[in-house]
């Protein structure tokens, strides 16, 4: 019975996620009570606020960016490549795509397409730098992507200057030329609020499906997973490790390029000093929380976004909203701990099951 329940990896994930959630709520409650706040009413306030239409829209919109970011990270993780550079990749991509979209006026559809393609290309190319450094010079991608995040900031700052790619947007704000109406993607209305859902949420969904399909159904995905599961076995099976590193990084960077698109085409229409930052780093945590799978990441990014959004009410109630960061870290850590335990138990059950079926228990 139990082995049947544990046979499927998603049941294991589910059990792990549930236990972890309970655990992190417990931790959060303890911290709250120690500091003199009432946990149930705090959670209730967050929940009440979180289920208002405004918050739902904001949560979904935010989750789209988180989701893409985590997917980008997960592509690398699936083959033990650690792309910390998603942050720089998406910012550079969004900036150049915004500049291109603002500079060129094109007919609708083509305009949007061009912007997105530019973003994907820039993200991919910027990610190719650490990939090439790794395969030709053996530079650890952990270091190179950290450094390239900083360097990307420098490049963006250089280009984002009036006279280069930027225009003055207000007395104190600069940004790329605003993308004209033909390049925008109007938001989708949501009942009960003026906030609009980014229509490009669909990109995130497509990317998720594409990711799933690529990983599970294509030869390339098989090679990628094989490399992640056992580098040595993959190489012996004919996988070209260098090529895989480059491909995976470029794909990861390409997806990273998409991160800014829902926001850019659906809301801000310009890359200004006010463009959201840091999504690439959040994506690492979310990818890990979602166990690098498209479905897990979806739940993880929704949870993360929900916590982010609903934490606003805490500030309003004079509770430090950083309690949410504690919850997030606790979820992340406990999910992995619990999953570790669950899968070890699962593996043991599997082995016992195999032995039992073969009648070899008395070895």
């Amino acid at each position, binding site marked *: 019975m139990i082995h049947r329940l544990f046979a499927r990896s998603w049941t294991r994930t589910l059990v792990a996620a549930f236990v972890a959630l309970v655990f992190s709520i417990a931790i959060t409650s303890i911290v709250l009570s120690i500091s003199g706040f009432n946990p149930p009413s705090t959670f209730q306030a967050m929940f009440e606020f979180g289920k208002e239409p405004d918050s739902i829209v*904001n949560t979904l919109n*935010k989750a789209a960016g988180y989701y893409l970011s985590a997917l980008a990270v997960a592509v690398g993780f699936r083959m033990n490549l650690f792309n910390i550079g998603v942050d720089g990749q998406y910012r550079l991509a969004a900036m150049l795509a915004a500049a291109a979209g603002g500079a060129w006026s094109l007919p609708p559809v083509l305009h949007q397409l061009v912007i997105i393609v530019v973003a994907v290309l820039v993200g991919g190319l910027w990610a190719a730098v650490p990939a090439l450094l790794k395969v030709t010079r053996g530079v650890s991608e952990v270091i190179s992507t950290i450094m390239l995040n900083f360097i990307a900031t420098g490049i*963006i700052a250089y280009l984002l200057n009036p006279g280069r790619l930027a225009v003055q947007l*207000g007395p*104190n704000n600069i940004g790329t030329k605003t993308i004209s109406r033909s390049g925008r993607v109007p938001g989708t209305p949501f009942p009960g609020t003026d*906030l609009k859902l980014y229509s490009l949420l669909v990109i995130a969904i497509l990317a998720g499906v594409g990711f799933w399909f690529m990983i599970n159904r294509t030869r390339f995905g098989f090679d990628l997973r094989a490399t992640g599961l056992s580098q040595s076995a993959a190489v012996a099976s004919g996988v070209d490790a260098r090529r895989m590193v480059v491909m995976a990084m470029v794909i990861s960077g390409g997806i990273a390029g998409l991160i800014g698109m829902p926001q850019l085409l659906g*809301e801000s229409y310009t890359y200004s000093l*006010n463009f959201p*930052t840091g*999504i690439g780093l959040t994506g690492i945590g979310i990818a890990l929380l979602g166990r690098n799978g498209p479905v897990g990441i979806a739940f993880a990014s929704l949870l993360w976004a929900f916590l982010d959004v609903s934490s606003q009410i805490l500030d309003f109630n004079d509770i430090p909203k950083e309690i949410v960061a504690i919850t997030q870290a606790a979820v992340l850590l406990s999910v992995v701990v619990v999953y570790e335990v669950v899968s070890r138990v699962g593996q043991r059950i599997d082995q016992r099951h195999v032995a039992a079926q073969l009648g070899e228990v008395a070895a």
Partner: protein
Amino acid sequence: AGCGGKKATTGGGGGDGKKTLKVGLAYDVGGRGDKSFNDAAYAGLQKVQQELKLDVKDLEAKEGESDNDKIQRLELLAKSGYNPVVAVGFVYATALGKVAPKYPNTKFAIVDDNTIQQPNVTDLLFAEQEGSYLVGAAAAKKSQTGSIGFVGGVQTPLIKKFEAGYVAGAKKINPKIKIQIKYISQPPDFSGFKDPAKGKTIAQGMYDQGADVVYVAAGLSGSGSLEAAASAKKWFIGVDSDQWQTASAAEKPYVMTSMLKRVDTAVFNFVKSVGDGTVQKGDVRFSLKNDGIDYATSNPSALGDMTTTLNDLKQQIISGKITPPEK
């Protein structure tokens, strides 16, 4: 566009409005404690609380957040009956543009921006270049080495305005003066406003290379620069609020002056005007003319007889004879 508030005590008559006034304020990244304009805004809010005896609520921003987060924050305040609501920083422009029309009875103010054209939005703008011009002149006058410095926190248009005014003021006094200019970080990396270690290193470098006065427009990083000044026994010029007041006893002698950007005054006056019913929509400019911008004279021994020159320049700016550049 429903007003949606549950306990919306929006507006009300002008006369007895005072009693129902609850003041909301949303900070820019950095929030309370940045020793810069968020703190100044907070000071204004405290004054509101003490002198006008009003309820206040201040909410913090998160680094890297999106416009939707800001929209929600402003709405949260407006919806819960806070009126007026002050948004600190131009980063709120887009968000305010969406929220203000939904709450026509709520008075909003935004600091450092004037792109939102709404009847219920007041733009609190500052002529930082004017004050910077004056402290630039002061620096050039004070300098014996003919070399001074400018440390910016993050290279944004706002901070470049400080730089431009400072440079122009210094050149006015001494056209051949050497000015070292350095920013700590580049946008969108705003860590330059809170990296005292780097603020210190940069200022030290400037002093080492001959500068004897350094103007630091770098938020919290300035505290590091001030330390460098004190240990090099050279001059330091603060920004936004009077940094002589907050400096430690050992550092006070080296704070020559500060360029004052009275966000506190602006916030206080705005709230007061809402209470009085005299609120003004559109641009409210704070400059030398209306004491919204000034330079500090809390260290008179450092300024010495310089004040005459400075006051003279100040008059020329007020009268329009001199127009310090913005970039």
